């Protein structure tokens, strides 16, 4: 009885009921299936694009990293760390200062190291006070040698006194010897790789030449060895 009523009701109003059912079903499909799926499709497509870009970037990075010879890179890092070490390395600085003074024709009366560290740009530095004596004509060479030495140094004060008769100078020189702590981070997996420019390569070659100058036997021989007769 009830079913017959329903059928009769539908037959009478099917012109309206059918379109309503179609509209509701379509709306249901749109709201719960088509719209969310399309939205996810678009978002995922974007995510795929990002992943592909990242993958391409990492592939390039791997290729770039593989192109470096690890031994050669370590050698270059060695040159750079010799010029700008991670710690104060007083012994190295002392040896180098003695060597540079001797090479420039100066004799060292005293060397003292400042205990406090100061900042020079992004780097740290410590002070070295030198009391030296040498020819007037060689002082410029000494300055140039100090400022282009294997270890980074900056002259911070100069005190020169000379007598009227002699060609010798008594110099009190203060220099800032630079060092810099190792960076905290060496870049993550997806951080861009720094590139070594032509200028950087030239600088490395210069550092290598400086290193060779220091380690060459002639340079080592020029180190002051002290008095031949200590009782003189």
């Amino acid at each position: 009885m009830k079913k017959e009523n329903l059928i009769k009701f539908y037959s009478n109003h099917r012109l309206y009921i059918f379109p309503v059912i179609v509209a509701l079903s379509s709306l249901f499909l749109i709201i719960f299936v088509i719209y969310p799926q399309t939205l996810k499709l678009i978002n995922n497509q974007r995510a795929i694009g990002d992943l592909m870009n990242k993958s391409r970037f990492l592939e390039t990075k791997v290729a770039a990293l593989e192109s470096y010879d690890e031994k050669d890179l370590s050698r270059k890092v060695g040159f750079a760390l010799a010029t700008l070490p991670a710690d104060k390395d007083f012994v190295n600085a002392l040896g180098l200062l003695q060597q540079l003074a001797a090479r420039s024709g100066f004799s060292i009366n005293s060397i003292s190291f400042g205990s406090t560290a100061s900042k020079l740009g992004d780097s740290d530095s410590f002070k070295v006070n030198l009391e030296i004596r040498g020819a007037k004509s060689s002082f410029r060479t000494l300055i140039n040698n100090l400022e282009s030495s294997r270890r980074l140094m900056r002259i911070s004060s100069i005190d020169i006194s000379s007598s009227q008769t002699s060609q010798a100078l008594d110099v009190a020189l203060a220099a800032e010897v630079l060092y810099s702590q190792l960076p905290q981070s060496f870049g993550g997996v997806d951080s861009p790789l720094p590139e070594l420019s032509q200028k950087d390569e030239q600088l490395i070659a210069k550092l290598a030449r400086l290193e060779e100058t220091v380690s060459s036997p002639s340079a080592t021989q020029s180190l002051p060895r002290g008095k031949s007769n200590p009782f003189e």
Partner: protein
Amino acid sequence: MAKISINLLPPEIINKELKKTKFYKIQFVGIAIILTMIFLASLTVALRILQSRNITEVQAKLTQTEQRVSDLKSTQASLFLLKNRLTVIDKYLEVSSQQSSTYKLIEKLIPPSVVVNTITINKSDEAVLLAMVPDAATLDNLVSGFTVKENNEGNNIRVSLESLNRGKDGFYRISFIIKRL
């Protein structure tokens, strides 16, 4: 002669037939809409499944590449360290400090006949010179060497005279401060 057509069907039957035709049309359109919606829904779901598979593949590839980068971590660290050091070294190596450039300038500008007793260049790049000058003309040359731009390589130099006296030997003893501005 024009034909005469007469519809003898009762209007109830005509109305019923018209309603039926209208319903069939609506039914056709409705079914077409439903089928289109089902097709679109299936299409999006299928595409999503394909896309998920694609994402998994890309992610696997990415993980593999990330692993390769991690394996080369030491090379990357060396490169970062090298670049970091080179940036600082480039800034200072063979670049004269203010004090040494001031000394070089003084050395260049002092006439050969002038005897310099002391040169003190302090941290703030202020130079104090104590010198002996043989005559007034040289003294004039000495001061103008520092102050005239054509002579001093275009530097702006302030010269402050601290003392000037003439000794029995005829030499002028001069003490002055030089500051590059």
